[in-house]
């Protein structure tokens, strides 16, 4: 299916706060975590953001993150228990833009929403959402909105 309109993601303030503080606390390392929520025809709605351990070799956590298969399976189980789905994942880019890199693209999965937090000098300056195109050629931006915004 072609994305004619930009995909939308609702991110409530408390889930946003979890991501921001995880990113700021992990600086200058990359942090990562899971987005749990629900999908309807029009949009995805995050209910919880779950911080997850960055499994990448600690020497390179400044610019690499990894959520291993055990953690993915556990997150899916936790989601099922709460009646939610794993909608996607978040991670941070310390001192870099909230845009996916080539490395991100080479290793991304389609369907998931990827939230990237740009953390500059320990403060979160931007949060942006992305989805990998089905042909893996590029990412499409996802519009991230707060609950209070109306359509």
């Amino acid at each position, binding site marked *: 299916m072609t994305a004619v309109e930009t995909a939308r993601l609702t991110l409530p303030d408390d889930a946003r706060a979890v991501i921001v503080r*995880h990113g700021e606390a992990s600086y200058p390392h990359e942090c990562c975590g899971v987005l749990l929520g629900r999908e309807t025809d029009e949009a995805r709605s995050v209910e919880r953001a*779950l911080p997850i351990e960055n499994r990448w070799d600690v020497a390179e956590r400044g*610019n*690499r993150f*990894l959520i291993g298969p055990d953690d*993915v399976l556990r997150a899916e189980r936790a989601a099922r228990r709460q009646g939610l789905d794993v909608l996607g994942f978040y991670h941070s880019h310390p001192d870099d833009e909230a845009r996916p890199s080539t*490395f991100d693209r080479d290793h991304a*999965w389609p369907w998931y929403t990827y939230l990237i937090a740009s953390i500059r000098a320990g403060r979160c300056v931007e949060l942006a959402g992305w989805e990998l195109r*089905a042909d893996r050629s590029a990412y499409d931006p996802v519009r991230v909105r707060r609950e209070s915004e109306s359509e």
Partner: protein
Amino acid sequence: MTSGTAEATIHIPTALRGFAGGARSHDVSAATVGQALRRLADTYPALRPHLYNESGGLRRFVNVYLGEEDIRYLQGEDTPLDAGAEVTIVPSIAGGALEAETAEATRSVLSHDEVLRYSRHLIMPEVALVGQEKLKAARVLLVGAGGLGSPLGLYLAAAGVGTLGLVDADVVDVTNLQRQVLYGTRDIGTPKLEAAARRLRDLNPHITVVRHDVQLSSENALEIIKDYDIVVDGTDNFPTRYLVNDACVMLGKPNVYGSIFRFEGQVSVFHAAEGPCYRCLYPTPPPPGLVPSCAEGGVLGILPGTVGAMQATEVVKLILGIGEPLIGRLLRYDALEMRFAEFRLRKDPDCPICGEHPTVTELVDYLQFCGIHPQPAPTEVVAPELQLTPTELVALRAAGRRPLVVDVREPHEREIAVIPDSILIPVDQIVERAGELDREREIVLYCRTGVRSARALKELRAAGFGRLKNLTGGIHAWADEVDPSLPKY
């Protein structure tokens, strides 16, 4: 083991179902895992670019499980299939800000010496080489290197946990040696982490011990904890317990909890991603002074040995991914009855830090949270004119005055050391037994260090006694000033 094709089912992850016509699973006939996956890609060509790279190999973060086992630890794509095999594709999620590919970590490979050292682990399939490598790659932080930290440090070092961080700012004291088996007599007066690092490196030279010679605080907790995979709470005070809990929730780390009191212990694993945190169990700390420390209430020396070993067991299980961790369960151990009890713990949806709408988003002042003032307010202040030193008491008696000397300790303490010509009325009975005391007579109250006797003095004054003195420094001071033959305890 059958050779030839078998009927197998491949479970398709959510992210790829759209490329498989929405299917959650797909049945194939194949001889090996690799063949099964290729058949899947033949049936659903749209899957191919997401499963395979340009050279035709599986993409790096496509994990394939046969049953419960990652095929990387079996024979990879050549792993043969048995009838009814379940193959599951599980994503790893990876990314990063720079372009360069990096080599797989080689640091967790074991040397010949290590293979020999860990042979009793390696011959068990539940651990095996892959498990031992996981232990070596693991980074575990022990908060507290005392009663619980001792067995934790010893057993985790022995097990081969590759990086052990220790947090403790204390110096080894002789009273520690009743239970803190990490240390010895020659370590008295040495910083605990200096002695601990020496001992643990001797036990296992293949691990790295990282010293954090500090008190954990809101200023340093996130910075220290973020580099570790698992945190173990071996602390002895409530402010630090809440601090460790909150930092672990914020950073997504599991917190292996243990506590001891006299003859009872508790163990659990708090992992906010999957279950309750410490605040779900104890949302408010006890009022200060209600729960005595080991110095005040005493503890069976062996108890932290048992509890710490149980915590170490949970750490190893978490690293290896085997067994049932104590997430959502509290294990209570009563050493006198020799009974274990288990209680289910539930995540509190209203928990202020790990619940659905968290209100705690930063580390706070935990001393304040626990109602402890930064300058410890002395519980009883005794005015100088009511204080009497042991030397002064001796002088009084030598001058012919005969004050009534009242020991307000517990009966078993009198067997250790006693001031001659004193009577015993334990402090908790002092008011109800005040009738045994002559109000007209000079009374000198003493205990071990002068704290309980100060409380007794205050209570007797309130009961109308006018001629009271508190023996400053208690029987400890008497041993220092008057009679060094008395043991101090």
